[in-house]
């Protein structure tokens, strides 16, 4: 079994050899490591991408908007990802973002996962019909478990989720009430020993 350190190093070096700058190659190394940690086929997709990259004649996107569509060919998932991660603080205000025609979309996913950590919000990502919930870069929930190469996506939709409770107030109150059963009712003598006891607020 390859270690994560080997995965990181080989992904980084091969990315440099494929023509990316060292700084971007470093990002790719970390990303492929992340995909493999989450049991997603990072190495497989990266290898396939590099083999076909030249003939794909990909388009680069530098400034990301709410709706982004490649003109003639598909977007490069790496440049799109780097710029998405770099611009996430400004993109945060746009709840929904759409990309059309993206090559090897799984390689874009770790950038989004890392962006979720940067802004401290969950991001819902949909690559055509594959759904992913990116939880602050800690884990990923998905309906996609295939160990396969995804060569392209027609549509990538992502929604930045506001930090909200996943439960009703009623559930909370009931649980809180139960938790109160670990507390001790204070009598007068116990109250005397509490912090600040015996002082007035003016002291």
């Amino acid at each position, binding site marked *: 079994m390859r270690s*994560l350190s080997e995965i990181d190093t080989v992904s980084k070096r091969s990315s440099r050899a494929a023509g990316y700058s060292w*700084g971007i190659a*470093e990002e790719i190394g970390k990303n492929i490591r992340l995909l493999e940690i989450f049991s997603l086929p990072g190495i497989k997709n990266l290898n396939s991408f590099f083999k076909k990259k030249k003939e794909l004649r990909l388009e680069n996107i530098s400034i990301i908007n709410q709706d982004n569509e490649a003109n003639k060919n598909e977007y490069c998932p790496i440049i799109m990802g*780097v710029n998405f991660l770099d611009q996430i603080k*400004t993109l945060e205000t746009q709840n929904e973002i759409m990309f059309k025609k993206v090559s090897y979309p799984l390689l874009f996913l770790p950038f989004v996962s890392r962006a979720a950590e940067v802004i401290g919000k969950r991001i819902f990502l949909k690559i055509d019909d594959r759904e992913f919930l990116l939880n602050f870069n800690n884990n990923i929930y998905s309906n996609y478990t295939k160990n396969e190469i995804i060569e392209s996506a027609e549509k990538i939709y992502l929604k930045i989720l506001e930090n909200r409770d996943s439960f009703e107030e009623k559930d909370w109150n009931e649980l809180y009430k139960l938790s109160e059963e670990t507390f001790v009712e204070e009598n007068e003598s116990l109250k005397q020993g509490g912090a600040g006891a015996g002082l007035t607020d003016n002291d």
Partner: protein
Amino acid sequence: MNIALRDPNVVMKLSRLGSFHQSKLSFLRSFLKEFKDWDYKRDLFELNEHGYGTAVYSFKKKNRVYSLICFANELHENERSDRVIATKWDAAFTLFDGVPLKQDIERLKNEVPRQEFGRLSYKELTLSRANKSVRVFNHVVERLSEGKQPDNKLIASVGYLYRTTAVYGSGKFGLADRFRIKDREEIYGPFRLEMMLVYLVRQFTFDQVNHVAKSKNPKKAVNLDLKICKSLGIGNSTGLGMAPFIVNHPTLLNNWILAREISLKKIREIKIVLEKDRELFLECLKKSIKNITSWNTESEYQINKIKFLLNDLNEFILYLDNDFNFEQDYAFNELYLHLEKKYCEECVEYVVSMMMEPYDDITSPLIKEMSSEEEKYFNIPTDRTVEELKKILEKRYPDILTIDFSKNENNLNFWFISKNKEEPRLANRFDEVGAELEQPLAIARDIKKLYELLSVTKNSLKISRFLSTNNELRHIVRRAFIVEKFPYSEIQDNTIGKEIMPIDMLRLKLSFFGALKFDPRSDKWLRICMFQGAPLPEQLKNYDEHWVYN
């Protein structure tokens, strides 16, 4: 009194870093301290009469066990090489996480001796190989088998029976990734597992030499005297492989240097130096001189450094004995200021290391801060502005920004990875091919390039926008933001210039390992000795922490 930390622009110069010496902060000393109450055991020793076979040694505490598995093999004279291109060694080792089963040992028997070409698993933590000093090993076998002890002079001149040529860890060749073990308290400090491997290998070399001598002459042979064992360490040949490490791990480097700098600052801030502390400092300093007088090297560069160091130290000791008043307030601060005024960098840093000896209370908490969670600092803060980044460069790289990289002498070399061994190398870019495959280790040059570009860019521009058209400088932008938070994370010199001495980079790292007697064999590799004078595993429970000077 509040003493400022030393200026990174002084401390982080290569000539200064290349003058560092071992200290209480060094990893091999910390390792011994942290493992002194672990149970040591030789679990398996199955060697034939020539000393070839398998051995297992372990350290155990409660439910945790670390086992060194040794494979000693026959090596023909024409196969013996310390070069990184070697493919066979006298012995190969791995540190196993737990107690190895028979099938583990069988599996590893086929993999560990192949080193870089073998495959390890997450159960193995570190990997190494070593060659005998044939001259010393054969001499010791000969003498022991005759019932005599070896020639002290020969033993002292070499200092080891074996020397390692590489120690690998952290996920190399399938070894366990650091994330699997990083929460273990006993190995939180840097390089603890590498230190453990080397320390146990040292014991193996004694057991092997005794075994071969006994096999040769069972009736007459004696064991190697324990005092002689103690005086022997493990040699190590170290090449450029180590140099990029300190560039590629900036926050880790910062934490090592910062621990040293905070120690010095706190020692200089001591108002009244207690007599016992003063005595211990003087004792260690005076006794340590023998480590310098017994420092053998053929390197003219190092011979000169040793000569200056010895002259300076002798003069400094005379000054301490005759002229210096330890009763005055802030005596160590006075001493430090005197050192900086009068003596060479090598002497200054040597004495700085010595000053730490009495102050466990200062160094111990700092030792716990010498690791780094590097991943935390990987993301670039892209909502910052060009102006802020420019200010960071001006503050953190004042000298580097004055270098003219259009001059060939400042842009002479390039770092690359060799194809045949995947090892870092340094070459002249105007004489050799391959400069287009340069590794991102020309930090000074790239910082200057970044600064020049920022200078013609709108100040208010966000880094996210700057990067969208300048991603070729992404690695250096990331670095500058790291250096902002970690002032000692960067070498404040040009690592591709004509004057570069790569061994300065090696020495810096090796001094933190705790190596003694740096012996440069060229400007690109050197030999050192580790654990020379250290207590043997059986003596660990109750040992003198200042063994380095005994």
